[in-house]
């Protein structure tokens, strides 16, 4: 019954629309790819090249003027501005601090949760939660936790009088300025949020190390310390390098956490390059041309650093 019914339905359709049959696999493939490709060109490729062009102009997105070609003036301005170098410096410090802390803590956590204990699965999942939250949300609620008058953190630390308590995000302690405190506060949140990511990658690396290597080391009378440096670290190194690569790229362009917590303040103590970029491009200044140039400088720095990492990673892999 059913088969004959199907045959009755399908044969006239085929007769009416023979071109359906003739559409090649290639055409179908292209049709499926086309929307993605169009979107990619419109949202990524075009802006990429357009901003490259704009970086050589004095264009401002709110001025009703066509862009005027100014050559490398924007780049010269940025690279000769001592203020900018300070922002690069802040970004570098931020990157160095967050990535190194995340590596040390992530490695330690991975070593801990690698061991099977009651509830180790749940503990691992709980540790991963910060990583899954939105950075803006994280920035916002840490801002509240850091609040000197009613923040949770000061209360936990036993400061009940705001006049002697640290105001983390304002870089002051008992109304006295402590430069750098805000940067460390932001670094702390970044570490809190992204250490699980490093832990996850290191953990998968640790689990892939075959037991017999440790057995061989035990027979060879290697101490735990020796085993850690001569077996564990080299074996995990490729995955650790990937974690470091990802975290370095993210830290160099970190924006949302900093913007959400300090907006670059107090003063410009936490003004990392991405925050400054945002300020240049949108907040009151609208220097689209110079912002584009700055964006390109950041891009080049990131590509250069990534390249170094990838080369090192390939050397590790070959060995």
């Amino acid at each position: 019954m059913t088969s004959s019914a199907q045959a009755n339905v399908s044969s006239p359709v085929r007769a009416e629309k023979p071109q359906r049959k003739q559409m090649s696999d290639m055409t179908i493939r292209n049709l499926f790819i086309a929307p993605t490709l169009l979107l990619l060109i419109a949202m990524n490729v075009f802006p990429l090249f357009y901003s490259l062009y704009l970086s050589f102009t004095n264009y401002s997105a709110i001025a009703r003027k066509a862009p005027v070609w100014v050559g490398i003036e924007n780049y010269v301005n940025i690279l000769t501005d001592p203020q900018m170098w300070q922002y690069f410096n802040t970004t570098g410090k931020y990157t160095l601090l967050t990535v190194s802390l995340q590596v040390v803590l992530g490695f330690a956590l991975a070593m801990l949760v690698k061991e099977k204990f009651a509830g180790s699965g749940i503990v691992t999942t709980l540790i991963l939660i910060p990583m899954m939250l939105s950075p803006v949300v994280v920035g916002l609620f840490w801002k509240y936790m850091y609040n000197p008058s009613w923040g949770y953190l000061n209360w936990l630390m036993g400061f009940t009088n705001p006049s002697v308590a640290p105001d983390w995000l304002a870089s002051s302690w008992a109304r006295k300025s402590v430069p750098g405190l805000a940067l460390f506060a932001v670094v702390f949140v970044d570490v809190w949020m992204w250490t699980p990511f490093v832990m996850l990658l290191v953990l998968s690396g640790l689990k892939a190390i075959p037991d017999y290597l440790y057995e061989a080391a035990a027979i060879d009378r290697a101490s735990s310390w020796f085993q850690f440096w001569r077996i564990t670290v080299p074996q995990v190194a490729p995955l650790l390098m990937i974690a470091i690569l990802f975290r370095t790229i993210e830290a160099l362009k970190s924006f949302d956490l900093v913007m959400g917590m300090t907006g670059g303040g107090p003063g410009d103590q936490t003004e990392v390059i991405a925050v400054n970029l945002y300020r240049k491009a949108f907040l009151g200044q609208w220097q689209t041309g110079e912002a584009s140039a700055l964006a390109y400088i950041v891009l080049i720095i990131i590509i250069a650093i990534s390249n170094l990492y990838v080369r090192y990673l390939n050397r590790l892999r070959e060995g």
Partner: protein
Amino acid sequence: MATIELRNIEKRFGETYAVKPFSLTIQHGEFVALLGPSGCGKTTTLRMISGLETVSGGTIHLDGANITWQKPGYRNMAFVFQFYALYPHISVRENIAFPLKAEGMAKSDVYKRVDEVVSILRIENLLNMRPGKLSGGDKQRVALARALVRKPAAFLMDEPLGALDAEYRESMRAEIKRLHLSTNATTVYVTHDQVEAMAMADRIVVMSAAEVQQVGTPADVYHAPANLFVARFIGSPGMNLLAGPRRGEKVELPGTGNIYTIPAPQREVLQAATPEGKNVIVGFRPEAAMLNEQGALTGEVYATDMLGAYKLLHVSFDSDTVVHIRCDRMVSHPIGARVRFDLDPQQVRFFDATTEKAIGPTQSAGTAPISVQAANAQEKAA
């Protein structure tokens, strides 16, 4: 000197035995093979000796000193792993140097010793390579060198040839044997390959189902297996085993007219061990049968395997019973032909049909009595 003494060692996981209690003394310089099918507990036994696995009971002694709870690295024994366990990220030279560096030897001495070992194994050309680039045989040579470098009192080898291609296996077998003879270190060697065990070992410990089945020289386990398991497991094909009721000095074997007369020296023992009319198992190796037109036993040729140097006849007694007979490669019998043969009385063994244990001696003629006994839990209970 390294005499390894196992006293009633056992390994249990909950109620399940991985190794049932047994005792064994391995003399200095002896090459002992632990042989058995996978899962029989041979590797667990070796790992207990090495200290990689703890014992559930019993003690292990090295030259009289109790080392049962000593850490693996401090037992002065080297372990060779089936999958080499070379450190992948460092060169061959560093791999071999690893045990010496781990114990903090001075650098100049380390490489002097590495060079010595390397020349013994003739792997000078591999020194600067990473383990990943080596063939299986070379990897195992490097692993042997690493084991050798600390001049251990004993070598423990866990199927070192198991992961190798057949072409390397035989040459590596000879190499390990040569190494053993030149270092004269006590060696315990785990394998599931009975040819390997027969070819290399001074003594074989046959294990099955967590239990030691027999301890003996290769000749012992081949010619005088202690029970049916050993009889079947050793040799390829295994021993021919035929069951039949004993009537007086004769055994009625399957097939028509197959009456086997028990050789005179064994009659008394056999009559004492099996009641009249009860089954007894007659065992003989394929080469113990001699084709003979006046032979007492007869069957039909079922298949013939030409194996180059000799021919293997499959002779069926009845639909359930096929025996293997080794004969000259020039002998030709068509399938279905009836053949008659005799058994060499020196090479016939008898087994109890219910306990499956050998009746009579479990040492082949001409071997010195061994000071070792395998006392398993059942025997102790009995």
